[in-house]
């Protein structure tokens, strides 16, 4: 029974892996990739590694593949151009494939199965007492024996993250930004002027229409919609100072 389930998972895994590279539409490719991840998770479950299975689904299917799909969905696909590309890159791709295949064969030929499973590092786990779940076992190993490697992995990811932010961060002065703390500090008296108007005369008698108090323009970015020129000049100093603080 278990073997049957294994072969079902393995067959679908290999088949969907093949579909990833042969599907015409890139979106279909990504969807097949997700199917492949799922079946790999199923194989992990069969092997009793439930923690790895769940993490595979959470990290790869739930986050990485979503971003893949996100990008691929927005591509403007031109199938004729893709054909041209195929002919251009086919020899190169075939060469890389051949090298990889040769390496796999070389590794496979010299593969030897050790008769006894060596368990030098997991030996300490038995002292914990009680049944050890594989989450616990993994945690114990990662945070004792492999602590340095684990932390280094984290550092590599941190560097990648900072790199991505540096590449994409653009500090455009024309962009619309909010300074939330400034907005929260605004009182009603700062923005509104209450007028006591005689009936039927409107606001003209009191010097023009009702408009926000001048301090409104301090939080607005100069040149953006709704900031009149005159006020902008008048408050140039203030605006510039705000800009420097940012």
């Amino acid at each position, binding site marked *: 029974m278990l073997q049957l389930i294994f072969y079902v998972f393995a067959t679908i895994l290999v088949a969907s892996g093949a579909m990833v590279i042969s599907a015409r539409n890139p979106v279909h490719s990504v969807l097949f990739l997700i199917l492949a991840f799922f079946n790999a998770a199923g194989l992990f479950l069969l092997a009793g590694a439930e923690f790895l299975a769940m993490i595979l*689904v959470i990290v790869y299917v*739930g986050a990485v593949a979503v971003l893949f799909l996100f990008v691929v969905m927005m591509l403007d696909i031109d199938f004729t151009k893709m054909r041209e590309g195929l002919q251009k890159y086919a020899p190169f791709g075939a060469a890389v494939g051949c090298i990889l295949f040769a390496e796999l064969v070389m590794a496979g030929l010299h593969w030897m199965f050790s008769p006894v499973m060596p368990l030098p590092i997991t030996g300490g786990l038995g002292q914990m007492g009680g*049944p050890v779940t594989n*989450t616990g076992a993994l945690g114990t190993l990662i945070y004792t024996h492999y602590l340095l490697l684990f932390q280094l992995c984290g550092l590599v990811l941190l560097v990648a993250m900072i790199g991505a932010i540096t590449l994409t961060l653009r500090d455009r002065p024309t962009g619309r930004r909010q300074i939330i703390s400034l907005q929260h500090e605004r009182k009603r008296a700062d923005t509104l002027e209450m007028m006591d108007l005689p009936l039927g005369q409107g606001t003209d008698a009191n010097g023009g229409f009702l408009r926000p108090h001048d301090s409104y323009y301090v939080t607005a970015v100069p040149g953006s919609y709704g900031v009149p020129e005159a006020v902008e000049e008048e408050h140039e100093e203030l605006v510039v100072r705000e800009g420097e603080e940012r």
Partner: protein
Amino acid sequence: MAYFFLRTLIGQIILIALEALAVLVPLLIAVAYLTLMERKVMAAMQLRRGPNVNGIFGLLQAFADAIKMITKETIIPAGANRFLFLFAPFLTFSLAMLAWAVIPTGSGLAVANINVGILYLLAISSLGVYGTLIAGWASNSKYAFLGSLRAAAQMVSYEVSIGLVIVSVLLAVGSLNLNDIVLAQQHIWFCVPMFPMFIVFFISALAETGRAPFDLPEGESELVAGFFVEYSSLSFGLFFLGEYANMILMSGMVSILFLGGWLPPLGIAPFTWVPGPLWFIAKILFCLFVFIWTRATFPRFRYDQLMRLGWKIFLPMSLLWMIATAGFLLATGMLPQGAS
């Protein structure tokens, strides 16, 4: 005789199917009445009456809506990807159902009491985004597509803080099993010592289910109806059911992680007479009420505000809280010593 039959493979399969039915049928009825509850509660908050024609207090309204939805025509837009277009609502709906396999309604009362229950829930809820994403792409419509892009970014962002909040709870429990998580709250519910995380989790749950004030994926004033504009009839109904089932699921997760699951508020006589599942249902109802209350109260967030809240406030806050929890537990020697 019956006992021996149940031990065979076919008997086991029938037994599991019956267990699944015992969870799913009440769940679907709950979804039907949640829609009614939402309309009634919102009506009361806005000084209206809400549905009151079909049945007493409008109790049959949900079924009238369901029959209407089923009998409408399914329209598949020209240029849509037929298979994926029909697959997306099905995926959303079945994922919302799948997650209930591990939710314990009483001590050990779950279809599958697995060791990594909370990770399973996290995995299933992170898959929910695919239904939306595929629906938006397969519809071949710009509004649907924009809605699904928003949904994808929103769900991925808020999953991060949900994950970190769960980690701080797990630090105090010492197990990934949902049963153990509830039992660890026998003395005090986690919503008391971890109150800020309770709030963060609840708000993230709102964002994760795409409910107001974070309902940008379907923002009807800008995107018509967002990712499911092109859907009609039963395929629309499946999205609808999925969304509400997800709401109930998230309320269940809040109850299990922070409100002590099926445990009574105090372990003394009048409270312990009420059976555990009823406490659990009461807590879920409370959370659902807050969901609806929020919808009736707050205006929709702007998209940059949503992202700012997720990445610049919730993420650092939950990260800091996680480190503080670990430090506190270690310093006071209260760190659960480990079975798992």
